[in-house]
């Protein structure tokens, strides 16, 4: 028994500590890498938070929207018109982005009209399940539509992104990761400003707090929903592009990585933008470090579940997440 405990101590604490001590640069590089990945998690999670805050919908299809938007962009950039057949003409990147955003707008309109509106006043869990349906639909629809362009690379040059490593104080970073992190950071700040300062943002917050109250002050609920789904679509596009850039190519298999945003979400709390930022960083760094230093003792690819278990443990102590609003049950 004692040996076992010593084993645990050595495996999980002592040996990693020694390793870190011996090679701090490697450790820092991993932390930095984890942070970069984490910010991407945050970006996807941000999409969830936006929609949840404004409409009370936990949009399970958010990662699917990211892939959908990105593939749409690639389609417009690459071969517009008949992507499934593989003929057509490419557009400039700006037009492609606009095209992609138009598609997200159409999607938002359809979702609002055909799915959310009929389900208004239903319990949140029903809406959640409906978004799982949306997830499947988008996957099937997307796979059919983008049959021929799946697995295409993100048009990095057109987007002005550079590939290759760079060094800061002897620690190596990928330019792609850094760009992604920077874009994500800008995105987060923009959204935070929008939520806090603009009238649209205030309206959105009002909608989230109380649908009835929002209605009574004259905010058209449906418009707000479309706006927030479009904003979430934009976030999805950016996050999809960044993921695609760092992964090399975009296809529907990416969704599994994107699902990693879920533990980020519950760790940070559904309703908190700073929460998901910090949650994403914690999970990004945590799983990278765990993978590097603990896998000798637990086995490979701890990443696949580490984030979930970490979130689960946090939830047991804080059911509303680290930054979520505490629920007071009233009777």
């Amino acid at each position, binding site marked *: 028994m004692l040996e076992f405990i010593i084993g645990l101590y050595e495996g999980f604490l002592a040996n990693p500590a020694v390793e870190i001590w011996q090679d701090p640069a490697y450790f820092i590089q991993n932390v930095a890498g984890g942070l970069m990945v984490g910010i991407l998690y945050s970006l996807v999670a941000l999409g969830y938070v936006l929609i949840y805050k404004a409409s009370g919908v*936990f949009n399970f299809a958010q990662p699917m929207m990211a892939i959908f938007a990105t593939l749409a962009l690639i389609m417009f950039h690459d071969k517009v018109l008949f992507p*499934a057949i593989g003929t057509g003409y490419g557009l400039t990147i700006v037009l492609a982005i606009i095209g992609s955003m138009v598609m997200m707008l159409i999607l938002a309109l*359809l979702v609002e*009209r*055909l*799915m959310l*509106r*009929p*389900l208004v006043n*239903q319990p*949140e*869990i*029903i809406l*959640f*399940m*409906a978004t*799982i*349906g*949306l*997830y*499947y*639909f*988008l*996957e*099937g*629809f997307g*796979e*059919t539509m983008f*049959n021929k362009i799946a697995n295409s690379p993100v048009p990095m040059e057109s987007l002005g992104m550079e590939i290759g490593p760079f060094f800061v104080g002897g620690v190596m970073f990928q330019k792609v990761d850094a760009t992604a992190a920077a874009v994500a950071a800008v995105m987060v700040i923009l959204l935070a400003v929008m939520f806090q300062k603009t009238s649209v943002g205030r309206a959105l917050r009002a909608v989230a707090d109380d649908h009835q109250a929002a209605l009574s002050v004259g905010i058209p609920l449906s418009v707000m929903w479309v706006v927030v789904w479009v904003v979430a679509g934009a976030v999805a596009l950016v996050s999809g592009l960044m993921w695609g850039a760092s992964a090399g190519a975009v296809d529907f298999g990416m969704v599994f990585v994107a*699902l990693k945003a*879920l*533990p980020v*979400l*519950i760790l940070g709390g*559904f309703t908190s933008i700073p929460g998901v930022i910090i949650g994403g960083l914690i999970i990004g760094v945590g799983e990278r470090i765990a993978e590097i230093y603990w896998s000798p003792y*637990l*086995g*490979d*690819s*701890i990443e*696949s*579940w580490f984030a*979930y*278990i970490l*979130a*689960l443990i946090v*939830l*047991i102590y804080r*059911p*509303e*997440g680290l930054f979520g609003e505490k629920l007071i*049950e009233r*009777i």
Partner: protein
Amino acid sequence: MFYREAGQFKASYGTDQAIFPIAQDKWFVLAVVAAAYLVVPLVANSYWYEVILTPVVVMSLSALGLNVLTGYCGQISLGHGGFMAVGAFAAFKIATAFPELNVIIVFLISGLFAAFAGVIFGIPSLRIKGFYLAVATLASQFFFEWWFQQVGWFSNYAPSGTITAPSQEFMGVVISGPSATGVVKYLIGLTFLVFFCIVVKNLVRSHIGRSWMAIRDMDIAAEIIGIKPLQTKLLAFAISSYIAGVSGALFLFLMRISLEMEAFDIIAISFPVLFMVIVGGLGSVMGSIFGAVFIIGTPVFIKNFPELTTASVILVLAGLSVAWLTKYGVWRWVPLVIGVPLAVFVFFQKFASNTAEHIVLMFFGLSIVLVLIFEPNGLARLWQIAKEKFRLWPYPY
């Protein structure tokens, strides 16, 4: 139309609380079960057994398990595949370690392991609710996926992690393994399904089931009438996972014979089973079976009858446009405007094999949303409504 209830009066609470208080219902269900046992083996061929019948009975059982947890107790779970995997791997380990042990007993024992896993991962449900819990259950899914792949012991150190159901004979009949015939596997699966349907039905109409439903409908009020929330939820987790475990064992021994851990991943199992439960009907034993038939039958239908599929998709979309006549104004044409060209386009693609799968995905997604919008209680509720109509026949209400 078929009902002649006059004169069926109840002189005791026993008859009043029977599962089927109306004689015609009872006879109908008995007739269906009898047909499943006696008529189906006479007419089915091996394609039917492999593609429809055995999958339907096994997945019905799995959906029944999830329905206990999600439908009756209201705890949504996305980790059902994980618990099925526990059952499958446990059954594999036990069956290979004790080759003499009858596999039927192996199945029943392997469920216990899944039940244990369910209880462990159910503990957070005391504090976590709604989709926080849904996401938390993903933890179990990913953890088991990783664990069974990572630890070679579970697959008896097979290099690819593949496990294969060992063969076994019972009273001269091969009842498991690659050489077992379709009819035997189907009948074993059916027997498990019937048995667990009765068990679950009995549980849900007892105080245990009422406690689950009380927790589901309003947990605060449940606590105030003396229901212990943790115990009740854990019991639901345990029974749900037990049934999931047994169905996982059947999944390996009767359906796949040989599989890897991926067979239980979230896309392969957890979501489809959740769909079965939603489409079939949350909180309905019958609904679990309806859901499994729908989710398993639809892809088979689409693959075998592409023309009919295209036609029926167009019909459904048109029907939708009509159904939304008054509610959504001009928006009601959207399904037609998008759907019809799509359906036609898909048809001219001649159903390249992967396209068919994508159609299935779209179809599932669409049906979930439609079910939630139009009949949140699923096919079981439609069945109920039809039954009510027949009882009232020829009156409209």
